[in-house]
């Protein structure tokens, strides 16, 4: 029997390279069709809302922008126990349910998938609200998808070129092309953020 697999992209598409994970699943779903038991999901920045999907999955592949302090655009692949399982109990920002928390909670409840594969990419720019992926990060979407496909093949998942079910993907109006093409110009849309968070200044 085919394992039940969740392919999840997380991050916030509104914050430039933070959208990497979501854009990966979008492109994957636009090019590949999978056998039964495979769910392709845009998880956004949602935390606990993702638990039902984790519960239903035996294996999990996550695409995400990951800050490992590496050069921008570097891919980082982490598996199983090494996927951070950390739960901060004292956050002031309550809804910052990081994915670590989701994994930790799933483990606590006994419904964490048995295999985890995190395909991360080091972001170049996050403090560009309303912006899209930087070139160096966008260039990693295809290689990231290749990593996922190789793993899916190892797991014996059926796949062929085609299109996946888009039920759990973003609304077409905020998919990569429409989102990036429809951005207002810098004249009308001020792009500066909080100076304390500018990379390279802290």
């Amino acid at each position: 029997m085919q394992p039940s697999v969740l392919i999840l992209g997380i991050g916030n598409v509104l914050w430039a390279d933070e959208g990497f994970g979501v854009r990966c699943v979008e492109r994957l779903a636009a090019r590949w069709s999978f056998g039964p038991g495979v769910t392709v999901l845009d998880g956004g920045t949602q935390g606990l809302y993702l638990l039902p999907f984790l519960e239903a999955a035996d294996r999990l592949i996550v695409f995400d922008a990951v800050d490992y302090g590496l050069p921008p655009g570097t891919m980082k692949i982490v598996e199983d126990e090494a996927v951070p399982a950390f739960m901060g109990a004292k956050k002031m920002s309550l809804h910052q349910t990081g994915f670590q928390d989701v994994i930790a909670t799933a483990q606590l409840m006994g419904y964490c998938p048995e295999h985890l594969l995190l395909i991360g990419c080091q972001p170049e720019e996050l403090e560009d609200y309303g912006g899209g992926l930087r070139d160096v990060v966008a260039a990693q979407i295809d290689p990231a998808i290749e990593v996922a496909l190789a793993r899916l093949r190892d797991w014996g998942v059926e796949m062929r070129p085609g299109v996946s079910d888009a039920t759990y993907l973003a609304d077409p109006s905020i998919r990569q092309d429409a989102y990036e093409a429809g951005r207002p110009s810098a004249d009308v849309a001020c792009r500066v953020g909080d100076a304390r968070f500018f990379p390279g200044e802290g």
Partner: protein
Amino acid sequence: MTVTPNGFDLDNTGRRIVVDPVTRIEGHMRCEVNVDEQGVIRNAVSTGTMWRGLEVILKGRDPRDAWAFTERICGVCTGTHALTSVRAVEDALGITIPDNANSIRNIMQLNLEIHDHVVHFYHLHALDWVNPINALRADPKATSELQQAVSPSHPLSSPGYFRDVQNRLKKFVESGQLGLFKNGYWDNPAYLLPPEADLMATTHYLEALDLQKEIVKVHTIFGGKNPHPNWLVGGVPCPINVHSTGAVGAINMERLNMVSSIIDMCNEFNRNVYLPDVIAIGGFYKGWLHGGGLSGKSVMAYGDFPENPNDFTPANLHLPRGAIINGNLNEVHEVDVRDPEQIQEFVDHSWYRYGEAGKGLHPWDGETQANYELGPNAKGTRTNIEQIDEAAKYSWIKAPRWRGHAMEVGPLARYVVGYAQGHEDIRNQVDGLLRALDAPFEAIFSTLGRTAARALESEYCGRLQKHFFDKLVQNIKNGDESTANIAKWDPSTWPKEAKGVGMTEAPRGALGHWIKIKDGRIENYQCVVPTTWNGSPRDTAGNIGAFEASLMNTPMERPDEPVEILRTLHSFDPCLACSTHVMSEEGAELTTVKVR
């Protein structure tokens, strides 16, 4: 010492304590207080450290798509922003929605309200009151007796059940892999529960996790998917076909039955677990009635849950609308979100610039020009602030005011307004709670009151959910399967220029989106979110905001362990973190306390 117009004595001469969760990416809120020699908070400064101008990224986009963008600004209330957005567009373009769409939207929003309140209480706020390490010392038999005393009809109450949970917790804590209980101030005397109550509440933390993942399925049924359900200007995007021969994904009897059983599940949990827990925990904390802040002075609600579609007048709303100022509960003022004299945003203490200094602007006229500068008395650098200068600009949050007053919004604000208006359900609930706690009316103006109001509201929302479900089913039985009005879908039917406003009561308070449309495109879009009201900095006149007010005069057991500060700020369910989500390698600690 300064006395603010809204009645607080500020003294910033004592020791300054900074609670700052800032890391490079995930910092969103910072709080600084001054404590006197007895450890009592005498000055409070709340800073929003993240800039998010949704306004500027929507310019030029299709108004019918705005909901999909607004859904992404928050990590929790996706649906609430989307609903507010479609309401704003419908208001601008004069689009009415069918009765079924009103019922379905209400059910979705009520469901989200319950989900958010339950998750907030058990998973985001409980550890401010409950000590899970202490739970390991509990006697399972005594816990079972406590459970049966506080909630006789809850089936999970045997000594064996609590022993199992306790063992599971023990294993988890001992394994050391989980940070869940890490970094807590578990020996702080601010924790008041006996071990048995701690074990009972920690057990319900687990039960609530199971519940929450079931109840969100309502969003998948009506919104096509979760976590980002689909919305539609003019109605809801799910067709109804109870004969089940129509479109795939249509609402049929099987799906309606599923919704019905989820609603029952919510009601059972509220009655058997959530409310009894709040009363049980409240009983141990009713001597700790700090944190009231503005709740006994100035509160505001926009109201929500229209009984009939397209009618947002107060008499048609199940949650109340109104404003109370200066603690006068005998007079509830009508709130008109379109009136340029009523809601205005000030930026004298915010890192923005208006054309005219000292002026307040209505959201329709709002300007968003960033202006990041620190005051002369700030310590540190622009990129590493050690201490804020609250006499100057000090926050990325604007200061919205209602007729010049700083207001608290949220469940407690809604309940105070409803109580003052004589809302029957709200009165009965509040009176019942106070009787159960043997506490006077004034007790609700507190951190505990804020937390309890959320539980009462969850229970009320559960009943309303049932009401709108029955209404939906009855309407379908009567032959009405309409869920959307697409008569004005095409932009060629729109006026050249239009403006509108959408309002909801989000779980954490009054939420408004103001939109201007020109030539079929978004000309201007402003959101005033609940945390903008509650987390607002000082205004031109010197009024402090709701977070700041709530911390005033609270004694701290140990000033370098901010249990009391976190407890009170968390009771607002603050939502500043509507954005980024990047993993750091160590999962570094997010809250740092610096004592200066």
